[in-house]
Every structure is written in structure tokens, then in C-alpha cells.
């Protein structure tokens, strides 16, 4: 055998479309049924995330309190009940939604459904648990302040979403966490019970039993009107958001440019272009910065999507000595992509990578549930992934080139950099017009 044995056999993509039920309280139930699967997982997604905070951190804290005791069981009793069945139960908030998640062996499906609703509708919201959570949150914030990747991600958000709730600290700041009290938690909980919600059940379960269980448990708490979306803003173009860490041996870089939404008809060619630049280990950023130059352990580009905003984000960590050349290399690559100086084999490899990724994402019910959540969250059609796969297979070079010419523009990018200030200043010269310091303790940008 002297050449790689590539295959041209077609792949079959077994995307599972959920069955839907709307319960009498307005809750939408999405069922991904795998009759032979030994496990079941459930997600209750409430469309009222941390971006609606009045006091930063209050939604995250309330979300965590949901699984720390109910009116029927205190936190310890609930934990014991869950864990003695070998199940898991958790809750969290991102900027767009609050989620309860549970998983376990299939015979616990009804019990898990009842328990999740109990947590959502009748949490104990215990004052001592809140105090404990707040202390822990303050410690977490301390920990985060030592994590250069966390700092870079938040410094970038501040510049990407100025005066927008996405730039607010989802987990709060020391001063706001301290201000969260029983009243704020009760107010957030009222918001959560009234907001629209979707439930995804994936794996092995009895359909009739699970529908009946959720119907019975949720009937008393109808969801009302959706919360208003935030006002859209533009990122601070040609701006750097810098976090000074004089002791750092590496610089963490995150660089963003505006991208198109999940609903845009050019989604497939756009994502193909991003994949060519940095979507995987043979993409340009990885090939040049790691394989050719040995500057870094990894360098990637992704389309970071939120419900009300999205961006192409490039990210890497490099030694101080390599920071300047790394920024120059990234700028060169962005310009090259904009001119679409791209070989045909780069397009085909990226396309195959994306198709293979889609094939690999059909392995488990939990993967199908994650896709279903994207469909719900971004308002996509049920067969979005089948359509997207077909579009990806048909995209032409001209389609990708047309998207790339507007997508890649180093004049409008926004850069977050964490590391030694003098190294960063030298590296960014000529690549941004404004450089501002981001203060991790107040999570604000200095004036221009």
C-alpha cells in the first residue's frame, strides 16, 4: 500500500428528530426516544438567564439553589435521594437560560422528572444554603482571577458587548454577590417559574409515562410571556482589552470578529471558512503556530454563538518571546482568508472534517439532546442539522469566498490579551488603534 486508502463511500447521518408535546401549562416537551438505551437524561431549560440580572450573580446563585433542597427535602436529603439511586442532578445558569439537568438509569426516569419539577417549582431557597453558596462563589471568583484563560474570555466579552448584558459578570463580582439576599433570590425564582421553558428527554424511557408525569407535575405553574431581548450592540472595533499579569510566562490571546447567526442562509459556507482558518488541528492557525513554528500547544478559531449574538473567535496561548510574531501571523492569516487565498484541498479537508464531526455527534442520546437544545435556543427548524449537512456537502468554493471577503477583516477585530504588559504592547502595535486595560476586580474597561 503506497498511498492512503481514502474512501468515497457515502455516509449515512442518522439524525434523530424529536417528538414534541405541548403540556397544558405551555411547556414544550421534546422526546428523543432510544428504546434500548439503559440511561435517560433530562434537561429543563428556562429562557431567563443571567443577562436579566438586576444584581450581578443573582440568577446563577438562584439556579444553584434550585437543587439545594426543596420544600419537601433539605439539601442533604435530596442529595442522598439522588445519589443512592446512582443518579445525578444539577442546575446552572448561562447568560441566556437556566438549566436543570438530571441523568440516571432508565428505571428512574419518572422519579427524576418529578424531582426536577419539585426543584424548579418548590425549591427551599434556604438562607443558610445561600450564605454558603455566596462564600463559595467569592472563593470561585478568587480562583478565576488566577486563570489566564478565564481572564481572557471575560476581557474579550467586555469589548465585544459594551453596555450589553453579555458583558456583565454572569457569576457576579465580590460586591454584587455580597448584595444578593433572600429577596433577590425570591424575585429571580418568580421570574424562572413564569418564563417559557422547554424540556428535553433523551435515552431510554416510556413515552406515555414521562409525558403524564411532567403534565401532572407542571400543571399548576403555567409559563407566561417571554422576556424581552437585549438591545443589540457593536463590538469595539480595532480595540484591545488587556489584562496585566507581570509574572506571566505566556500571553493568552482571544481575538474576535463579528459573524453570522445560526439562522443565516450562509451559515454553512461561513463555518467552512472558519474551520479552514482554525477549526481543527490541520487548520491554518494550528499548522503554522504549532506545527511550523512550535510556538504553542494549540491555536484555534470557532464560531461562538449565543442567543443574541455571535462572533468568530481565535484563541491561543504562546510564550512571551513568541507573542509579537503570533499576532503578526494571525493578522496575515486573516488577510489571506479575506483574499481567499485558499487551496481547493484545504476546502475539501475542512468540509470532510465537518461532515465527520457531524457523524460523530450522532453516537449517543445525550449528543442528540445537545443538538435539540441548539434547535430550541436559536429558533431553528427541527431538521436543521440534516439541512445543514446537505448544505455543507453542496457549498462551492465561490460560496465560501463570498462569505470570507466580508467575514475576515483585521481592521474590525477586537483583541483580549492577558500577560506581561510590555510584551503585549509591543505585540499589538499596528494591529489595534485603541488599547484599554480591563480590570478583573471591577470587570470594567478603562476609558479609551
Amino acid at each position, binding site marked *: 500500500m503506497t498511498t492512503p486508502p481514502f474512501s468515497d463511500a457515502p455516509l449515512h447521518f442518522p439524525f434523530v428528530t424529536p417528538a414534541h408535546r405541548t403540556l397544558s401549562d405551555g411547556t414544550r416537551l421534546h422526546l428523543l426516544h432510544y428504546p434500548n438505551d439503559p440511561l435517560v437524561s433530562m434537561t429543563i431549560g428556562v429562557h431567563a438567564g443571567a443577562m436579566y440580572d438586576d444584581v450581578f450573580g443573582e440568577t446563577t446563585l438562584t439556579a444553584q439553589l434550585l437543587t439545594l433542597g426543596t420544600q419537601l427535602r433539605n439539601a442533604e436529603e435530596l442529595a442522598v435521594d439522588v445519589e443512592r439511586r446512582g443518579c445525578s442532578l444539577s442546575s446552572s445558569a448561562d447568560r441566556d437560560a437556566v438549566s436543570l439537568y438530571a441523568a440516571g*438509569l432508565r428505571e428512574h426516569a419518572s422519579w427524576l422528572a418529578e424531582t426536577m419539577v419539585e426543584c424548579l417549582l418548590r425549591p427551599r431557597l434556604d438562607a443558610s444554603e445561600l450564605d454558603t453558596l455566596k462564600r463559595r462563589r467569592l472563593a470561585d471568583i478568587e480562583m478565576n482571577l488566577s486563570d489566564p484563560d478565564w481572564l481572557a474570555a471575560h476581557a474579550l466579552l467586555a469589548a465585544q458587548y459594551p453596555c450589553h448584558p453579555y458583558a456583565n459578570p454572569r457569576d457576579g463580582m465580590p460586591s454584587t454577590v455580597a448584595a444578593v439576599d433572600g429577596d433577590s433570590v425570591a424575585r429571580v425564582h418568580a421570574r424562572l417559574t413564569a418564563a417559557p421553558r422547554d424540556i428535553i428527554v433523551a435515552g431510554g424511557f416510556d413515552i406515555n409515562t414521562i409525558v403524564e408525569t411532567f403534565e401532572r407535575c407542571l400543571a399548576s405553574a403555567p409559563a407566561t410571556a417571554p422576556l424581552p431581548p437585549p438591545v443589540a450592540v457593536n463590538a469595539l472595533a480595532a480595540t484591545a482589552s488587556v489584562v496585566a499579569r507581570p509574572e506571566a510566562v505566556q500571553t493568552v490571546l482571544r481575538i474576535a470578529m463579528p459573524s453570522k447567526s445560526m439562522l443565516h442562509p450562509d451559515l454553512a459556507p461561513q463555518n467552512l471558512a472558519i474551520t479552514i482558518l482554525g477549526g481543527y488541528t490541520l487548520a491554518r492557525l494550528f499548522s503554522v503556530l504549532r506545527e511550523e513554528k512550535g510556538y504553542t500547544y494549540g491555536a484555534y478559531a470557532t464560531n461562538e454563538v449565543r442567543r443574541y449574538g455571535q462572533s468568530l473567535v481565535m484563541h491561543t496561548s504562546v510564550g512571551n518571546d513568541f507573542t509579537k510574531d503570533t499576532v503578526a501571523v494571525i493578522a496575515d492569516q486573516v488577510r489571506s482568508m479575506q483574499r481567499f487565498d485558499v487551496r481547493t484541498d484545504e476546502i475539501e479537508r475542512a468540509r470532510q472534517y465537518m461532515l465527520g464531526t457531524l457523524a460523530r455527534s450522532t453516537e449517543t442520546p445525550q449528543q442528540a439532546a445537545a443538538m435539540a437544545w441548539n434547535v430550541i435556543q436559536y429558533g431553528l427548524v427541527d431538521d436543521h442539522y440534516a439541512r445543514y449537512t446537505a448544505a455543507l456537502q453542496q457549498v462551492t468554493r465561490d460560496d465560501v469566498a463570498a462569505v470570507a471577503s466580508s467575514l475576515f477583516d483585521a481592521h474590525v477585530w477586537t483583541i483580549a490579551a492577558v500577560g506581561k504588559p510590555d510584551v503585549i504592547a509591543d505585540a499589538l502595535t499596528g494591529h489595534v488603534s485603541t488599547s484599554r486595560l480591563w480590570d478583573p476586580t471591577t470587570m470594567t474597561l478603562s476609558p479609551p
Partner: protein
Amino acid sequence: MIARYTKYGALLALLFLTVAARAQYKPIVFTEYTLPNGLHVILHEDHSAPVVATVLHYKVGSRDEDPRRTGFAHFFEHLMFEATDKIDRASIDKLINGAGGQLNAFTSQDATVYHFVVPSNEVRLALWIEAQRMRKLQVNEIGVETQRGVVKEERKNRYDNAPYGGWMEKQMATVFAGTPYAWTPIGTAQHIDVAAIPEFVQFYTTYYQPNNAILVVSGDFDPAVVRSTIETYFGGYPRAAEPPRPSFTSSKPLIGEQREVIQDPKAQLPALFMSYQGVGMTDPDMFAMDVLTEIMSSGESSRLYRSIVDSQQTAVQVSMFNYAREYAGSLTVVGIAAPGRSLDDVEAAIDAELERLVSGGVTEAEVSKAKAIIESKFVGQRLGVYDKALALADAKRFMGDASHVNTELEKYMAVTKDAVTKLAKRLLSAKNRSVLHYIPAKG
């Protein structure tokens, strides 16, 4: 009398939950055979998704290294993505990713493992690449020089630029002193820097041989096609001399406490890392060990969490885990102090819980709960084709029998309260341990 009835009722309910769950675990069906050159092959079919995983497990890890040349095994994990006779430099990624697959590798003290997950129509490509780099790797200056840079950056990323980054190196050096487990796979940068090309070639020739490897193919494939492909690609390599194995019977007993305080400018909160000699993968107590660590630190009803994080609020995080290698393990407790609390407070609280464990043992209810958690995890970790391939390779290598994947759960379920208590007494009665205190150092 009522209390007695309730207790038994709860116990019966727990037993029922356990029995019902175990009935759902579907054994992994596989076939296995050995090529004349010694390559052991395991095939597992799963046609639920159009995906195939290959795992090629080489029996070489950092324990096989010359102590003056640490980091070699991990360095080879990187070098194996360089050129072969028929594959250009740095294009293995391109071949696999370009075919829609995913690839990676990892190095432990015991093994170096390469894995691909590819769309099912590309299984032949995955096997061709593995066969190429098993015996046709080009070990030359350009590849070595490039990967030297990459490995140094990996070290900075994981160790030098991360809070508490050096704890594992320090712990291994103490807990496994005098054994080949005393250094971590990342090794010492200077050893790789000074090594010459012939040394790398020698390492490759010694360990990257068919009779030093286990190949697992798992997923959506035609077994006849895969068998003949393996024969074609791997069958022509001759059997090599058996590689030397370091002598390793057991770790030198750790006597007393070895303490160190580290000022860490990257850390924001003080952290404690406390390690005892634990249990290795082949130790019969391994199953009791996992039950013990589940009881102590898995979930919010676990002992350490309930007591130290939730009730006393001395720490924001406490965990206990056994880092199991083939012949030895380290049992580590990690505690991160809550703001305003000292590491002495954390250490005292952990010690109190360990003393309670040693003196009072564990309860039947705790063992039942731990088994239920293990059972769920076990089922969850046997769903994907890659996870199953990895489990089959590990079972063959470390247990000597791939079918161990299907009997492992029974062994967990057979663990008794007394076995867990006895193990805890054996490992934790005396303070024979390494204790590291990481203190945030500003500026």
C-alpha cells in the same frame, strides 16, 4: 421495632435499585486474536452510529525511561505525528481530520495510547496510518526540533503557567521515590534538549513493535474487511525482541510525613495536596479503593463534602482520588481553603474525617450508595465506541484479559463494608504521607 423495620425497608429498596440497574448493563461482545508477529487485536462491532474508533496501546510509558532521559515516552507521543516513509511531515492530522475524523494520544507512566475516531467509511485509512507509524516513522532532526518546542509550550501551559502546576511532580517524587513512577510523563525539558537523534531512534526501535502493542477496533465496520486490512498492513512486520521492563515489585514504604510549603504567584487561594501510598490497578483491593473514594468525595452527600465544604465551610473544594498505575497508586486528598481559612484549618478538618473513617469504618448504606453511583458511571462510560475500545485495551493490558470489561461491575458489587474499612485502616492509619501547602504569593 419500627426503626428496625424502616432501616431494613430502606436497605431492601437500595438492593432492589442495584439489582434492577445491573440487569441493564449489556456486555461488550468482542473477538480477539494475535498475529504471528505478536500484535494483539480486539474487534468490537457496534452499528448504532456511522463511526469507528481505533485504539493502539503501546506498552511503554514514562516508567520505562532512563531516569537521565525522562520525558521520552511523552515526547514520542508528539513525534508519532511527524513523518513516515509514506506520510509527509505533520500530515497525519490532515489525513484523519481531512477524512472527517478525530485523533489524539496520551501518555501515562505505563502506556502510550493513540486513538482515532473516524467516519465508518474511513476505517482502512485509520489502520493504514497506525501501521505506517508503528514501524516506518522518520525520526530526524526537523521533527525532533519542532516537537521540542511544542512540548516545552505544553509544559508551560500545564505546569509553569498554571496555579498549583507542580504539585503532581512533587507528589510522585515522594510517594513513588526509588521507583520508575517517581517522575511524571512530561519529564524534564533538559533531558529532551540534550538527547541525540540515535537515542530517539533506539527508543522507537525498542518499544514501537507489533509484539509490544494492542490494537482495538470498535464501531460500525465489516469484520471481514477489517481483519484482512489488519493482516495486510501490520502482518508483514517481524516480531521484535521483547523490550526491557523496569523491575517494579512495590514502592518503598513511605515513612512519616514529608512536608513542603510552596509560594505560588499564580495561586489565588491556598491549597493543600496530601498523598498517601494508594492502590495500583492490579491490586485486588482496587475495587474497594474506588468504593472508598466514592464514599469520601463523590457527590454532595459524600463525607468530605458534607463535613468540610458544606457544614464547616473550611474549604471550597475537597476531593479524594486514587491515582492508579499498573503496580502502584497514590491516594490523594486535595483541599482548597475557603477565603479567610488557613491550610492548617483545612488539614485539621481532613485529618478529623480520615480519623473518623479509620476508627469507625464505613456503613452499609454508604457502600450501597457508592455502588449505585459506580454502576451508573460504569454504564455511562460504556456507550461510545471510543470509550469501549479504550476499556478493552486497558483490560487486556492491565488485567491480562479483555473480558474483564464484562466482569468488572460484578467485582464492584461484591465489595463489602468490611473490605472498605480494612483498606482504609491499612492505608490511612499512620500519617505516612506527602503534604504540600501552596500559598498565594502576590507579585
